[in-house]
C-alpha cells in the first residue's frame, strides 16, 4: 500500500494534490482496496460551489456504494471523464489515472489542516 508524501489526506480516505489554488482529488490506495472493484463513478456536481465536508458524488463498487466528501470548500471544475469508461483506473492507479475531480480551492490554507502522509498511514495501519 502506498502513501505518496507529496499529497495531503483526509479521514474519509481521499487524497489531495494542491497546485496553485487548484486541487486534484482521488481516493487512497487503502480505500480502493477496501471498496474492491469500482464499477461506476457518479459525480454530477461539476461547476458547483460546495462547502468542505459536503457530499460531491459517490463511488459504486461491486458490493457497496460509498459517498465522496469534498475535503475543503471550493468549486468543482472538472470530473475525470476517462472514469466513465474505465472506473477500474481507481483500483489500478488510485494516485494517477484514477484521479476523480479537480477543484478550485476557496482558501488554500484549509489544505494545511489535512493529514500528511505519515499521519494518514498511521490512521489506516
Amino acid at each position, binding site marked *: 500500500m502506498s502513501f505518496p508524501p507529496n499529497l495531503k489526506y483526509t479521514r474519509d480516505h481521499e487524497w489531495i494534490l494542491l497546485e496553485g489554488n487548484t486541487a486534484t482529488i482521488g481516493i487512497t490506495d487503502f480505500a480502493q482496496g477496501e471498496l*474492491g*472493484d469500482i*464499477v*461506476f463513478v*457518479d459525480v454530477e456536481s461539476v461547476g458547483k460551489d460546495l462547502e468542505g465536508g459536503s457530499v460531491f458524488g*459517490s463511488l*459504486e463498487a*461491486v*458490493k457497496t*456504494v460509498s459517498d465522496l466528501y469534498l475535503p475543503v470548500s471550493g468549486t468543482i471544475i472538472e470530473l475525470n471523464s476517462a472514469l466513465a469508461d474505465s472506473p*477500474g483506473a481507481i*483500483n489500478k492507479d488510485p494516485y494517477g489515472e484514477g484521479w476523480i475531480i479537480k477543484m478550485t480551492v476557496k482558501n488554500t490554507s484549509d489544505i494545511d489542516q489535512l493529514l500528511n502522509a505519515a499521519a494518514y498511514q498511521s490512521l489506516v495501519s
Partner: protein
Amino acid sequence: MKNTPFTSKHIALGAKMAEFAGYNMPISYTGINDEHTAVRRNAGVFDVSHMGEFVLKGENALDLIQRLTSNDASKLSAGKIQYSCLTNENGGIVDDLLVYCIEENREYMLVVNASNIEKDWNWIMKHNNKAVIMENVSDRTGLLAIQGPNAAKILQPLTDMDILNLKYYTFAKGKFAGVDKVLISATGYTGAGGVEIYFEDLPFGSQDNNMASDKIWDAVFKIGASQGLKPAGLGARDTLRLEMGFSLYGNDIDDTTSPLEAGLGWITKFTKDFTAKTILEKQKSEGVKRKLAGFEMIDRGIPRHGYEIKDHSGVKIGYVTSGTQSPSLGKAIGMGYVEVKNSLLDSEIFISVRDKLLKAKVVKLPFS
C-alpha cells in the same frame, strides 16, 4: 463468529474476510470481477461449508419432506436432487433448499441456507410427528462448490467416480482425493457448470492434522494450479448467481414472499399436499399481485437491495431485492418486486437511486 474448516486457508491466502450468517467467510481474494470471470470461463473454488445439512431417515422421511416442501420429492430416486421451498402457513418461504435422495423413501439430505439453519431445524422438528430420525450434520459437513465449465475436467483425476458425465442435479458418492464417502453433485449457484463436493469432517474448529478438509483442499489446488483454478469468494458467488436470476434468501425471497411471486411456480406442485397449498392455489388461480422481475438499467447507476422502484409518474410500485454491475455483461442489473402490470418484458420502470430516478427496463431471466 464460527469458522469453517477452511477459514485459516482463506486468511493465509490474503482473502478479504467478513461475517456471513455467523461464519467468518471469504468475500474475495484477488477481486470480485477477477474471480467472477475465472468461474464463468474456467473454474473457481468456493468454500460454502457454512451451508446447513440435515439428514432425515426412516419410513416417514419422505412423508415429512412432502408435507413441508413445495416441490414433489416423491419423484426423486436415489442419486437425484431437487430444488424446493419450505413454505410457511401464510404461503411465504421459510427457506429454499436442495433435497438429495440418498435412499428412496428411507433417507434424504436437505441442504439449507446458513442463515436459516436454526429456523429450518425448528420448523421441521415441530412438524415431525411421525418419528423421522433427524440429524443436523451442518457443523461437520465440509462443502466446496467447484464451479465453471472446466471444473469437472480438472477434478476428474482425483476420483474414480465419473464426474465428467454426472447429469445436472444428480450425485455420486465415493472416494475423492483419498477421502471416503465424499458426495459429489452436479449442482451449483453460478450457472457456470461444475460440481459441489460434500464430505464428513471432524467437527468444525477441531485441531487435527488429519482433517478431510485439508486433504481435499490441498489435492484440489495441487491439481488445479496449472489449470488456472482459483479460489473465489462470496462476492463473486453473488454476482454469478444474480446474472442467472437465482434468488438469494433474505434478499429476493423471505418469509413474506410466496414462491409464485418469486417465479418459483415451477417448483410449486399442487398435485400433492404441503404447507399453505390452499393459499398458494388460490393465489395461482386469482393471479399474484406482485412479481419478482429482472431489470437492466438504461440510465447510468447501480440498483441496490432496498431501493424503491417507481413508475414514470413517480408512484412507488415496488422495491429492489438485488442489484449489481454485471461483470460478464458490463451493465447494471437487478431484480425486484413490482406490480404485475409493470412486470411485463420491456416495461419501463424507474429506480430511486439516492435523490435520482433512473430509468430501467424489465428483461427476461437469466440476464443476457
